[in-house]
């Protein structure tokens, strides 16, 4: 096997991610003051030491059961969640697209897109130049001027997708986000993602639909309780995973 000449875009070395869950009080105030271990926060060891490289132009699917650490790993690679130990090296700023978050829920989709562009580092002029085209891409029509908290999850996903790809990312991380879109949105977003990958971009994707994952990715990582169970060509990994499931 000859060495792959492609440059790396992500190198994760022994990455662990713990996060705190709040509000899960084990006892009352007295217990919290007396016994520190009964504190209000519970530590979750979501990712427990994973190492892998991803190259330019590679599309990698993350599979695993619920709670296996897939989303946490993506957030850590995106830099929105801190790694507890280990190291993440990247070639470019990764862009994460998730579903859960509403940006500014009282502001309209239009304002959210413009503000998101500014947060990404565009100047006001650049954002104004781009916003109409991005709004067009969402296909939301008049609804783009309604507040975000009136949107369905599919409509919100469109706004998120547009923001994640507004500045063509070299590294795109997609967390289940396409699953909530309708067929037309999936077709347009698919086209955009393929453009990104073919331009030496990198895709990491969490998706519970294995057939869909197979259409995007040639490689898969199987995460099991925060550890990599298997890393290889997608067909092999899916086969092993399905045998378990």
């Amino acid at each position, binding site marked *: 096997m000859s060495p792959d*000449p492609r*440059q790396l875009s992500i*190198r994760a070395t022994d990455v662990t991610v713990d996060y*705190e869950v*709040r509000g899960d009080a084990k006892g009352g105030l007295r217990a919290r003051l007396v016994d520190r271990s009964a504190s209000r926060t519970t530590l979750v060891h979501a990712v427990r030491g994973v190492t892998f490289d991803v190259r330019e132009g590679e599309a990698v699917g993350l599979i695993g059961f619920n709670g296996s650490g897939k989303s946490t790993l993506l957030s850590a690679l995106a830099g929105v969640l801190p790694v507890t130990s280990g190291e993440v090296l990247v070639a470019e700023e990764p862009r994460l697209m998730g579903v859960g978050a509403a940006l500014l829920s009282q502001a309209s989709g239009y304002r959210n897109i413009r*503000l998101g562009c500014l*947060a990404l580092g565009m100047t006001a002029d650049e954002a104004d130049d781009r916003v109409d085209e991005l709004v067009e891409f969402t296909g939301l029509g008049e609804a783009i001027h309604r507040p975000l908290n009136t949107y369905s999850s599919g409509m919100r996903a469109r706004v998120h997708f547009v*923001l994640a790809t507004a500045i063509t990312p070299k590294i795109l991380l997609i967390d289940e986000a396409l699953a909530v879109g309708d067929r037309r949105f999936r077709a347009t977003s698919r086209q955009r993602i393929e453009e990104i990958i073919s331009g030496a971009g990198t895709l990491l994707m969490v998706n519970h639909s294995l057939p869909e994952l197979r259409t995007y990715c040639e490689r898969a990582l199987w995460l099991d309780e925060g550890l990599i169970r298997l890393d290889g060509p997608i067909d092999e990994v899916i086969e092993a995973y399905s045998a378990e499931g």
Partner: protein
Amino acid sequence: METPDIAAGLRPLDISTSSRAYLEAMWRRRDFAVAMPAESVRARHQNTFLGNVWHLVNPLLTVAVYLIVFGGLLGVNRGIPNYLLWLTTGVFAYRLTSNCVLGGATSISANLGLMRAVRFPRALLPVSVVIGEVMTFTFELGAVALVALGTGEGISRRWLALPLVLVVHSMLNLGGAFIAARLNDSYRDMQQIIPFVFRLLQFLSGVMYPIERYLNTSHAWLHRLIVWNPIVRILDLYRWVFLGTPINPMETLQSILLCAAILVIGFRFFVAAEYRYGRQ
């Protein structure tokens, strides 16, 4: 098997360890820091009939309350020419500090959605709170100027110093916003405590009466708290601008240095926990 240079283009994800890279990333997003407060102002007053007018009416009503209690009832206005303007200046300027710090405290928890969607230097959130407060404060200064003219003070050349006073004041406010933001992210209870801290500070900052009158307190710590309270000196500066009350150049210089120190300390304190923000 691996050629050694395939990892050549890689860099660490974390930029908060380099102040320079961090500040550059902030500067690149300066338009965001200005657009952000406009959105929150819009959201805050969406459902009130008078909307942004409340920004002015609220402090003016506060002035009226203090005028009745401290001027009318307690008579602390003895020896202060133009107490109405003296009080108005103090109330508006003090409110700017408390709004900035309280807004800074909630700036992280109020923007979790945005933080999860887009990565940007989190220090921009407290910064945008302070920018928003300064923008509304400039309108409020207009109201103070009207009170000055209405009470016969006349336009003065000292007014030209207002931008400089506001810069010094903003250093203090931003430093306070940074500190409150980090503390409130670790301990959500802070949000409940901060209003009481500011209520106490208000009495120790000479907002409604000249605090120097009470300097001969028998409690040494209270005395120290008053002498070192940078807000006292900031209010002095505003009163010098509008009323021409004398200021001590040495004390002024000290307070400028103190405000700058609070800003630097606050910024470092905030950025040191950069990656913890919004991870719940």
